[in-house]
């Protein structure tokens, strides 16, 4: 079942420079774990952000759960965003607030303006947040301020905030780029669990080819704003990788055979 469909999506930040996205089309089925790989500046980040309209499209069309998103009005856009979780490279938490408060921020999309301003949540919402926090192994830190957490813990809070939205899709923008290898593995394992056990669709941008191969059902390779590869991990050959990354592929390919360390 198709959850998300992009048709001829383009994005120009300025008419003077080359487009960030040029004629991107692909569709995503419910429950898929998709990695988007490509060199820095290739458009991965822009691509993810067009899906929840954090970045406005210049052309083309995106359909999410049967609804075309590009012409949604303000309140409809809020509703759309509340169904799509997002995880960031730099976690984007409110550092001075506690873990539970940050997780509950995921409910703001469902709240009235006043309730959201006052930060008053229902008992059901709090219980759900607690279950998710527990699931992510953060129960000891519930009332800790987020600036006291390690990077890996912060990213787990970020995941919890996305999960508490009850999303159909989670967009992960370089979720492990700021983490050390062991924290990165923990985060990727959690994402895999979320995809497998909760059936949530994941679209993850990564710059480590080996990790993308290890964890995902499908890999999309982006270069200069266009899709140059879209297929199963085992179809990704050396030649295709060098097509995605250009000339430096040799170094990356060494990792292809050594990715056992990341097994889930």
């Amino acid at each position: 079942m198709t959850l998300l469909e992009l048709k001829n999506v383009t994005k120009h930040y300025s008419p003077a420079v080359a487009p960030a996205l040029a004629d991107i089309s692909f569709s995503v089925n419910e429950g898929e774990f998709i990695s988007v790989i490509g060199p820095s500046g290739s458009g991965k980040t822009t691509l993810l952000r067009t899906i929840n309209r954090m970045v406005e499209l210049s052309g083309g069309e995106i359909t999410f759960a049967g609804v075309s998103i590009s012409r949604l009005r303000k309140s409809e856009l809020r509703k759309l965003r509340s169904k799509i979780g997002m995880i960031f490279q730099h976690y984007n938490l409110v550092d001075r607030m506690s873990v539970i408060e940050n997780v509950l921020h995921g409910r703001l999309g469902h709240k009235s303006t006043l309730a959201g301003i006052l930060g008053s949540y229902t008992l059901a919402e709090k219980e759900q947040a607690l279950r998710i926090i527990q699931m992510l192994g953060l129960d000891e830190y519930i009332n800790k301020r987020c600036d006291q957490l390690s990077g890996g813990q912060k990213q787990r809070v970020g995941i919890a905030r996305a999960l508490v939205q009850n999303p159909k899709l989670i967009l992960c923008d370089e979720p492990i780029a700021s983490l050390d290898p062991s924290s990165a593995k923990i985060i990727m394992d959690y994402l895999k669990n979320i995809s497998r056990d909760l059936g949530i669709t994941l679209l993850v941008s990564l710059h480590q080819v080996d990790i993308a191969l290890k964890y995902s059902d499908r890999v999309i390779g982006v270069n200069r704003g266009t899709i140059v590869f879209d297929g199963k991990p085992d179809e990704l050959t050396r030649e295709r990788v060098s097509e995605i990354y250009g000339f430096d592929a040799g170094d990356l390919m060494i990792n292809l055979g050594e990715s056992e360390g990341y097994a889930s």
Partner: protein
Amino acid sequence: MQVDVFRKRRNNALIFFGVLALLTAGAIVVTQYDVEKGFTSLGKAFVWGAANLYPDVKSLAKLPDILAKLRDTVLISVAATSAAAVFSLALALAGSRATRIHRSFTLVARGIASFFRNMPLVAWAMVLMLAFSQSSLTGFLALFMGSFGFLTRAFMETIDEVGDSSVEALKATGAAYLHTIFQAVLPSSLPQIVSWLLFMIETNIRDATLVGFLTGTGIGFSFDVYYKAFNYHAASLVVVVTVLTVLIMETVSNTVRRMIL
């Protein structure tokens, strides 16, 4: 090569200090500052100060009066700062990168802040005096205007420093504009904002003396009255009381700052 670098640096330093000295000489000529008199009167002032500028027993009788004026000055400073802070915060939110409604708001907010901040306090006081005469309102409004400009700029910088990452995250969950402000921007920037508030109150207590001088209110007026009546003992009592107030205020705000930052 090496020698050249050293020579160049020495030449630069020479030019820098040369210009500095030249400008100083120019400034002395323009302002008609009497260097010799400056030095001699500095000594004279200390001799005179030691002989006259201390509160004596008789002047202590004025203390209740002075304290009442001091109370007015402190209250006006706090009220002017707090009231200005409310308006400043609104303008700063409208103008900051992460929270602005439109790009152009930043420039407008900056312009307004700059206008109010750079407008001389004397001009505010003089113009307000014309209509509000010698009332506490004159002092309050004059301080309000200056604080509004300063705080708007300070708050804008604070909010910009907090950055827009958490705002972006909240927007992505479908949160409304006001949610991002109350759940992300304010919680992150409030400690710094409070710190600026306390700083502004300190500054305003000092500036209130000047404004009081011009508008005939508060502790500045007390000093003026005693000073012009050659009652230096009472005038020095005003100085002592003011110094103590500012020092206490500084200590309190440093303590609060340590707790919140």
